[in-house]
């Protein structure tokens, strides 16, 4: 009973009723199945997004960057990297804030490696991608995605820290002196309001990409040739993972739209890890954030950051390709 509600069994049946009895399309045929997929997936994702983004935003309002900075100064070594990664998930910020946050952390004498653990994990584990992964692939994959995002962040940060690249930070960053401001403590009512604002603004930003992605997914789901895809992009093709990551880096497109497509491709035989690696690369190594990072960090460190994160993602891709059969 609980499973029926939680796993959207009720929605599945509702849409099936709509497709078969009102649109008069057979679910056995491609067109009926595609329409069902499209309507069902769109509604399911919108519901999941609204509920989970609200919950996550509300929880995140307790972790403004100023507080994160204070917490991180108390941790040394590997514990610092782990904390940095965890806080990267939990601290909300838009990518244009990544520079002030970087400067703030450096100024608070938080080790460079820890700062990078935060910076690598944070964009990879964004709540909308998590929710959509949850919807498309279920709990196990979604949580494993979070876990691997953290691992890439922790280990990547540790390596960068060990390479002693402090001289790769732009000099002016070390010269900035700022006084800490007491971050405003919102009331619970205000937290709820901000969380609701977040839901609306995120949905406003991604709905179009999502619908397009789901539409393409529906097409692939029903009409794409299975053997062809398995042959070239299946889980047994390690080269495909690397290609996926390289493709993902310059992609300006909104990653939300790619997830339903990835779901459909995977159902057709593309390796789970291959698709995930592509998506992670799109977010973690997005060109806009690298451009911003250049303002505070010199080219050599940028290159190392891209290389380490890229390799990390490729390895995660291989991992998911191997585990794929057990997860979906």
């Amino acid at each position, binding site marked *: 009973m609980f499973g029926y509600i939680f796993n959207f069994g009720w929605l599945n049946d509702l849409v099936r009723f709509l497709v078969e009895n009102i649109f008069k399309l057979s679910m056995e045929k491609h067109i009926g199945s595609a329409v069902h997929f499209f309507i069902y997936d769109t509604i399911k994702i919108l519901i999941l997004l609204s509920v989970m983004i609200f919950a996550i935003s509300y929880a995140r309002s307790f972790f403004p960057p100023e507080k994160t900075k204070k917490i991180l100064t108390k941790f040394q070594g590997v514990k610092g990297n782990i904390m940095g990664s965890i806080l990267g998930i939990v601290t909300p*910020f*838009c990518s244009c804030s990544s520079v*002030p946050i970087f400067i*703030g952390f450096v100024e608070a004498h938080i080790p460079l490696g820890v700062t990078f653990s935060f910076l690598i994990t944070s964009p990879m584990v964004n709540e909308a991608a998590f929710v959509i992964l949850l919807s498309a692939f279920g709990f196990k994959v979604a949580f494993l995605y979070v876990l691997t995002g953290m691992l890439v962040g922790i280990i990547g940060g540790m390596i960068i820290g060990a390479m002693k690249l402090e001289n790769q930070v732009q000099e*002016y960053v070390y010269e900035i002196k700022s006084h800490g401001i007491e971050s405003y403590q919102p009331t619970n009512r205000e937290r709820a309001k*901000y969380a609701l604002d977040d839901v609306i603004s995120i949905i406003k930003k991604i709905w179009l990409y999502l619908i397009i992605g789901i539409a393409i997914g529906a097409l692939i789901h029903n009409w794409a040739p299975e053997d062809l895809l398995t042959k070239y992009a299946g889980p047994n093709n390690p080269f495909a993972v690397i290609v996926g990551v390289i493709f993902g880096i310059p992609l300006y497109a909104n990653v939300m739209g790619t997830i339903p497509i990835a779901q459909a491709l995977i159902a057709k035989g593309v390796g789970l890890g291959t698709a995930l690696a592509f998506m992670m690369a799109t977010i973690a190594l997005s060109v806009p954030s690298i451009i911003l990072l250049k303002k505070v960090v010199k080219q050599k460190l940028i290159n190392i950051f891209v290389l380490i994160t890229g390799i990390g993602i490729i390895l995660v891709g291989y991992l998911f390709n191997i585990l794929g059969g057990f997860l979906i």
Partner: protein
Amino acid sequence: MIIKVLGSGCSNCKKVVANVEVALTELNLEASVEKVENFKDIMAYGVMSTPALVIDEKVLVSGRIPSVEDIKKFLG
């Protein structure tokens, strides 16, 4: 009254400026609205998450986009 919007120019920061101008118009107030995009200056306010709204050197909002209603309350 000196209003400053701190941010490096992404769309969120532009939205704050737009909201500020609507609020000023609706309240029939005049004030200078300045965009602060230089990171050194932003950090001097102790702000870590942009966009941020500063009125008469006090940081009122940081890390989110204040609505026109919120801004009108600050101005009023």
